C-alpha cells in the first residue's frame, strides 16, 4: 500500500493505492489519526480509487479515522470507491456511516 497527502486550504486529501490488509493498515491508520487528532485538520478526504483490496483490518482503520473525526468535530470523506472496496464496505454493513462522494470535486466542495 502507498499513501501520500495533498493539502488544499483546510482540507487534506490522502491518495491511497494498493492493498489495505493486516500488513499495511498501520501505515494508513497512523497518518489518518495524526491528521485528525494532532493537526486538527477540519476536513480529511480519502481517495480510494487505486485501492485494489481492503479487508477487515483496513475497514477497522477507516472506522478509527471516522471516530477520531467525530471526536474532534472534523469531516471524514471517502471517494473513488471501486467495486472491491464498495463490496467489502457493504458486507460490513458500515457503508451507511461513512460520508461517501463520487468525485474529488464533490468531496472538497460539499
Amino acid at each position, binding site marked *: 500500500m502507498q499513501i501520500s497527502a495533498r493539502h488544499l486550504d483546510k482540507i487534506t486529501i490522502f491518495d491511497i493505492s494498493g*492493498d489495505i*490488509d*493486516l*500488513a499495511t493498515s498501520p501505515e494508513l491508520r497512523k497518518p489518518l489519526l495524526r491528521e485528525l487528532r494532532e493537526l486538527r485538520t477540519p476536513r480529511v478526504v480519502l481517495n480510494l480509487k487505486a485501492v485494489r*483490496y481492503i*479487508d*477487515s*483490518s483496513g*475497514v*477497522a*482503520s477507516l*472506522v*478509527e479515522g*471516522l*471516530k477520531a473525526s467525530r471526536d474532534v468535530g472534523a469531516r471524514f470523506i471517502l471517494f473513488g470507491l471501486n467495486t*472491491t472496496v464498495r*463490496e*467489502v464496505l457493504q*458486507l*460490513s*454493513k*458500515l457503508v451507511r*456511516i461513512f460520508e461517501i462522494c463520487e468525485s474529488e470535486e464533490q468531496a472538497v466542495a460539499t
Partner: protein
Amino acid sequence: MSGRSLLLRMELRSNPETLCVVRGAVAQLTDRLGFSEPECRAVVLGVDEAMTNIIRHAYAGHPDRPIEVLFRRIRTSSCGKNGEALEIILEDRGKRVDRAKLCGRALEDVKPGGLGLHFIRESMDALEFRRRNGRNQLRLVKFLPIPEPPAGS
C-alpha cells in the same frame, strides 16, 4: 462424502506479508475453477480473513509460526445443497480458539475490529471449526458454480 482431489497445498508462516501472496494464489485458483468474479473476490476475502484471525489471535502476532492451507475439490452435502465444492482447510498450532468469540459481534456497533469472522461467514457457504491434536482446524466450503448444460440438450 467422496471424490476429494487436492488442488493446492500451502505451507506458510504467520507473517502478514504472506497475505498478499495467498490472495494472489486463491484468486487464480478460484478463477480456474470457474467461479464468477464476485465469488472469486468472496473466497479471496474469506481465506484472507481466516489467515488474519490465525495470525492475530491464535499466534498473537508472532510472524514465524506455521500455517497450512489445503484446497480440495470435493463432492459434499451442506446447507441443504448437494454438489461439487471447493473445500479449504486452514490449520495452525496456536492457542485454542475461544468458541464464544466465534460468534462475532453485532454489526450495529460502530467500532473497529471484530468484522473478520462476519466476512468469512458471508463469503463462504459453510464454516466449521475443530481442535484436534493440539491444532486448530478451520474448514471452509464454497459450492462450485453449476455448469450450464451443453447447447441443444
